[in-house]
């Protein structure tokens, strides 16, 4: 059954668990550096290796970041919460338990407003955000696929073991209907933007800083009880999230149509095919024997601290978008293009530097984006907001027209200097010599009697036909406005 048919027939319910690696200097429970890369097993201490006798100590910065995330998601911050041990045997878990939080998370019950492509806002209910530590990384050697099956042996790197994570769990997200897959991806993108705005994580999907597990189930109707869900693990790009949800909805619908049952299990997503495959059955048989971590004392973030953090929260992306939309008077579509292109900050800074919002938007999304695209770069990598504002200034002062400004921009991008310098160096400033302009205008009038007739007859748009020759004669440096005034004056219109 195809996705399109599946969502007509069934009501999809999704649930998403997002793990974000916090950008603290050290790990969650020990002093080992929290950095990406480095030789295997170099960023470790006795605690992150789980050596006999080692003990954990809570990283206060990690707690601070978790509280900030909780606050940004509108959660209640617990007055007291605890860490718990999640017990399971696996070589990448050095203590054979993961220090996590179970029934006492640091943050609970919030919501995230997610904006879809067309501007629709969907509210995603958040059940909880809790702190935990990451596991190490297994590398399977000797097999064809790099998977454990067929491997000769496995290597474990504990550099990542103990890296602080916050896991954000949604309540079941209902009522999304045909947009379920889109909502799933947009939700994770929104969280990614929030993490970056809070500066609690680099939040780079491709480095695995943000990872999502996607739960999907189907039911006959919104009134029916929830169906059996599957959990697709570690889906690590927005596009993959969307594809994984689409695939699961279609797959489950096909099963249900055939009168079969959906098996509750974890599934793996395959980038190459866009399909998911069965992992291990997940059922009540999964018993992590949670109990409060006795090596740590309960955490009691003071209300003063929480309020301090709340007051220090930066403006979140959604708030900022709403504010700027009002200030700039762009259309919803224009605003979305800016956000999707990652140009909101750049345009805001350009406006702060003195440019009008419309001009800033025009240059960033137009010529700057085009030039950046040629070099496979982001627009903000090739010019600064101050430079764009400088360029706009020169246009406003009448020293450049759009065409000349593009030339100046090329020079700025090439590293020739600031816009004013490039304009001077390349000799691009608009000609102020009215003698030369007058000559060009007269020449144009003389050579185009038919156009002149039209203008005299009241067809003002015909002036454009004279501008070509004038510009040609002045090598583009004529001020279009002045040329127009001259033509009208000479024709006595």
């Amino acid at each position, binding site marked *: 059954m195809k996705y399109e048919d599946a969502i007509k027939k069934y009501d999809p319910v999704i649930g998403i668990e997002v793990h974000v690696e916090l950008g603290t200097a050290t790990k969650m429970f020990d002093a080992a550096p929290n950095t990406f890369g480095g030789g295997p097993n170099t960023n470790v*201490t*006795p605690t992150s*290796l*789980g*050596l*006999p*006798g*080692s*003990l*954990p*100590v*809570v990283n206060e910065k990690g707690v601070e970041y978790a509280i900030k995330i909780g606050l940004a998601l509108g959660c209640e911050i617990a007055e007291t919460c605890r860490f718990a*041990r999640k*017990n399971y*045997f*696996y*070589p990448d878990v*050095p*203590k*054979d*338990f993961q220090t996590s939080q179970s029934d006492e998370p640091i943050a609970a019950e919030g919501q995230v407003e997610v904006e879809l492509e067309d501007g629709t806002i969907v509210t995603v209910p958040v059940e909880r955000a809790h702190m935990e530590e990451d596991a190490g990384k297994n590398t399977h050697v000797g097999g064809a696929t790099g998977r454990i099956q067929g491997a000769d042996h*496995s290597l*474990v790197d504990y550099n990542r073991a103990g890296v602080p994570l916050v896991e954000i769990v949604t309540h079941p997200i209902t009522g999304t209907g045909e947009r379920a897959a889109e909502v799933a991806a947009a939700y994770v993108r929104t969280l990614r933007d929030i993490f970056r705005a809070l500066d609690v994580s680099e939040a780079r999907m491709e480095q695995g800083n943000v990872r999502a597990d996607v739960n999907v189930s189907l039911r006959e109707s919104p009134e029916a009880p929830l169906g059996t869900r599957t959990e697709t693990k570690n889906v690590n790009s927005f596009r993959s999230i969307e594809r994984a949800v689409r695939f699961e909805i279609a797959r489950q619908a096909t099963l249900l149509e055939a009168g079969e049952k959906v098996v509750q299990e974890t599934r793996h997503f395959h980038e190459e095919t866009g399909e998911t495959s069965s992992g291990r059955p997940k059922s*009540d048989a999964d*018993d992590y*024997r*949670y*109990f409060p971590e*006795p*090596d*740590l*004392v309960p955490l009691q973030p003071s209300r003063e601290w929480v309020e301090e953090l709340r007051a220090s929260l930066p403006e979140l992306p959604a708030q900022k978008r709403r504010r700027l939309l009002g200030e700039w008077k762009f259309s919803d579509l224009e605003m979305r293009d800016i956000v999707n292109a990652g140009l909101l900050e750049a345009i805001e800074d350009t406006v702060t530097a003195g440019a009008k919002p419309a001009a800033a938007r025009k240059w960033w999304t137009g010529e700057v984006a085009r030039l950046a695209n040629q070099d496979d770069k982001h627009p903000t990598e090739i010019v600064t907001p101050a430079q764009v504002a400088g360029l706009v200034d020169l246009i406003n002062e009448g020293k450049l027209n759009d065409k000349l400004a593009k030339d100046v921009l090329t020079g700025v991008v090439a590293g020739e200097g600031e816009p004013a310098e490039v304009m001077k160096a390349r000799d691009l400033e608009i000609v102020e010599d009215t003698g030369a302009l007058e000559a060009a205008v007269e020449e144009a009038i003389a050579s185009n009697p038919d156009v002149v007739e039209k203008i005299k007859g009241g067809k003002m748009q015909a002036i454009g036909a004279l501008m070509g020759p004038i510009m040609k004669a002045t090598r583009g440096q004529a001020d279009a406005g002045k040329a127009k005034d001259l033509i009208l004056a000479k024709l006595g219109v």
Partner: protein
Amino acid sequence: MTELTNKSALELAAGLNSGEFSSVDVTQAHLDRISATEDDFNSFITVTDELALETAKAVDAKRSAGEDLHALAGVPVALKDLVVTEGTRTTAGSKMLENWVPPYESTVHNKVKAAGLPVLGKTNLDEFAMGSTTEHSAFGNTRNPWNLDHVPGGSSGGAAAALAGFQAPLSVGTDTGGSVRQPAAFTGTVGVKPTYGSISRFGIIAMASSLDQVGPMGRNVADAAALHELLAGHDPLDSTSLPDEVGGFLSAAQTSELKGKKLGVIKQLAGEGYQDGVRTAFTAALETAAAAGAEIVEVDCPSISYALDAYYLIMPSEVSSNLARYDGMRYGLRVEPESGPVTAETVMSATRAAGFGDEVKRRIILGTYALSAGYYDAYYGSAQKIRTLVQNDFAKAFAACDVLVSPTTPTTALKFGAEKAADPMALYLGDVATIPANLAGIPGLSLPAGLADGLPVGFQILAPAREDIKLYEVAGPLEAALESAGGRVLDTLAEGLNAK
């Protein structure tokens, strides 16, 4: 037995200070004593003679140079082999860690090193501190110096035997349910379980994290007090470490009086199931205390009756999790399956099957069960509630007296292979008087109170949490009163050993 090994730690400290002898003399005397007696006692898993002499030499040099030294500098000490020692193998009494040489240092050993105490070696224990006889050690039984046919107690059996056998003047043990106090009672020595969090657990191989506490041990109260002062104090590496300033233990032990002290006899711990000789010695000690001016009252701690049950749920639960890491993947023993595929899972399974002894396995199984979904509330959850009740009972009891007292153990040291020693349930019952203190986190001390059938009897004192000093305020003068009434318990042994 030389004169030097017969001296208490404080006597040795005084002699070192006055220049009567050197730390090398003292350390060598104890090392000689160890090599002469280890065949009998088997107190040590590893003797670190070279390191000990190196430390002794360094301390002697500093003393000659007139440097400021710790009061116990140069006095040798033995560490239970649960204390991580960087560069010296640390086994936890288990085959699992038979060849494990720690690459890092424990806070306890750091403190001992900083104070300049030569470490004689690592003492024997029941595997991962689970047991009360040392019979569960992978390195053989330690025998009680009082009678080699009897157990020295456990799990800090090696630590206690090293003291009673005059192999070491000071020992560091650990106490999760009585593992310092019970062997102290069985060997006629003094063992202290401080308030939970008094001494750092960083680098102490974990048995049950919420119950484990390092304990100073000596042949008399003052020695234990001095060692307690050395070891205690806040450690930022242990999140459960108390921020309290510590001190005054030694002077409390040396200068306090029994007059006016209120000793509460715990009704639930003075009656049935106790060996006659133990009861007699305990009652006699109470009379001695009363004669010295102490007031004896009876107090009721009803929930103590459930303490043992709660302990045997909480302890194994934490054990099952703490011992999960011994899986053959990173350090210690690694065993591949005899047949079938070699995978992480089969190696973990084969390693744990081969590396752990029966008692450890029994507790891991118990704990795994108690924490399982569907049982958690009934077992671990209920046990935690009892824990709160025990704490409340103690709080009420301490409102009516300064300290609580009881016999440390229901019996004197059992014989190896005795019926009781083979029955785990009977052995668990032997911890009935010591366990409540661990559940409540309060401090406890055992000191010798005479003999029963030629074996020592332990007298336990319990004090409110973070008031460890009260242990010494009573134990110090009580020890003096008991000695003037009946002589020093250990002198009897010393005479016996000398006669050999």
